[in-house]
């Protein structure tokens, strides 16, 4: 499932993964930040559809992407409940301003350090529950975490994240103040990891009520205090479900690893040609095999030397090998955005990523060889994979 700046696409193949059917664009003309399926009901898909003109829409499919609908009030039905209260709508993301949980959450920092009110802009990432197809988490800009438990009709903020104490000093990165990573611990349903640009990584151990920053060991030269508790521009975090205490992070600069659920981080950039980048992901069957796509710098968002190279470490970082077969090795100046890499769970792990040039590349042998599935989509924002039986 591929989200692009001008619509969503679904790319389908059998287990051989050598012939692909491409359907779409779905929601043509809209930015599709993310599409993702429920792990417990693969026919249940959710999509974040947004535009600068008309705001946020959430779309849902109950048949694997053939048909989509907004999970709000059907046409012709009253938009208020019998008691007069407004019904929920799938695109209604309203920050919690209640006295008990939302009152202190009035402003974050703007780029110039001045207070700025929280303003909902869009959903960057949708993370369906591991156990309930009706439950989904949404990471939004300005950074907050929302949850639905009714299939996307109503969304409530988990305000403990913004309200845990540092929220008023969070500041946006160039892409906005976005919550882009949501990792659900398969062994502990009350543990969730999130990451925000540019505030850092956070963890809850009580299902989202209370949160703590987990940024010890991060070192960011672009902020006044390079080892501050928050303010780090984390671009992406990843985990292997079999080893949920081990996290990997692609930061604005630096690739890092934590072996203690984020309590501490160690840099594992090793021999990468650049430790700037956006994506990071983990092999489906080898928890210590990690993938990144180095990007030249924060001002030059393209691969070093015009060579599009995925780097793989089989040792959980530090020691990286370039994967180049089938990828352009000259004159390539695309970017790979933070949600635009995914892996499948077939025996030979497939790895997929999309570029801002509209290519979607696939490797069916864990990265040794690559081929483009499609070359001319709009700029790719996100890539997700479903491995169907």
């Amino acid at each position: 499932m591929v989200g692009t700046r001008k619509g969503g696409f679904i790319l389908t193949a059998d287990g051989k993964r050598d012939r692909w059917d491409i359907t779409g664009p779905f929601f043509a003309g809209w930015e599709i930040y993310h599409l993702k399926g429920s792990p417990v009901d693969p026919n249940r898909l959710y999509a974040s559809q947004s535009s600068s003109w008309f705001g946020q829409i959430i779309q849902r499919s109950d048949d694997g992407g053939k048909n989509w609908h907004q999970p709000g009030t059907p046409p012709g039905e009253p938009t208020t409940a019998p008691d007069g209260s407004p019904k929920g709508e799938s695109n209604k993301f309203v920050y919690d301003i209640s006295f008990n949980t939302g009152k202190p959450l009035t402003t974050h920092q703007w780029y110039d350090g001045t207070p700025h009110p929280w303003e909902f802009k869009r959903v960057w990432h949708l993370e369906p529950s591991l156990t309930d197809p009706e439950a989904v988490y949404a990471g939004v800009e300005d950074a907050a975490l929302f949850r639905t438990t009714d299939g996307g009709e109503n969304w409530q903020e988990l305000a403990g994240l913004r309200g845990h104490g540092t929220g008023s000093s969070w500041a946006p990165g160039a892409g906005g103040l976005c919550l882009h990573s949501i990792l659900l611990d398969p062994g502990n349903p009350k543990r969730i990891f999130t990451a925000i640009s540019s505030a850092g990584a956070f963890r809850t151990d009580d299902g989202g009520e209370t949160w703590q920053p987990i940024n010890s060991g991060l070192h960011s030269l672009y902020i006044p205090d390079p080892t501050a508790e928050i303010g780090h521009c984390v671009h992406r975090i990843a985990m292997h479900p079999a080893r949920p205490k081990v996290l990997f992070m692609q930061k604005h600069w630096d690739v890092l690893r934590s072996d203690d659920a984020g309590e501490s981080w160690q840099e594992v950039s090793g021999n990468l040609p650049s430790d700037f980048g956006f994506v990071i992901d983990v092999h489906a069957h080898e928890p210590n095999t990690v993938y990144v796509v180095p990007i030249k710098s924060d001002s030059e968002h393209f691969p070093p030397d015009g060579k599009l190279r995925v780097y793989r470490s089989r040792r959980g970082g530090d020691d990286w090998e370039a994967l180049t077969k089938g990828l352009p090795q000259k004159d390539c100046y695309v970017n790979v955005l933070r949600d635009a890499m995914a892996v499948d769970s077939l025996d030979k792990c497939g790895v997929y990523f999309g570029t801002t040039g509209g290519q979607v590349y696939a490797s069916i042998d864990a990265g040794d060889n690559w081929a483009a599935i499609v070359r001319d989509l709009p700029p790719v924002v996100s890539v997700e994979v479903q491995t169907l039986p």
Partner: protein
Amino acid sequence: MIRVTLPAHLRKLAQVEGEVKLEVQGRVTLGSLLDALEAKYPMLRGTIRDHATQKRRALVRFFACQEDLSHEAPDIVLPDAVADGSEPFMIVGAIAGG
């Protein structure tokens, strides 16, 4: 019957072709027209006015009878020609982009 024109993306969301026809009870104001539109087409809630503030989204504009009504208050009474359906109320997406 009030006639409303929508931008193409909103027509698609509302699953309508051409103009939308609305009945508005009482005085036809900017606010009551938008309320009626959103009541008939709930999927448009939040796309024209912000859910939380009810303010017009920045890149959406309102026109009728050669007048720009984008910056008018919700309680402004719309022209008779809109109320009687001889002129459409136009909801327009701002021209923007490259």
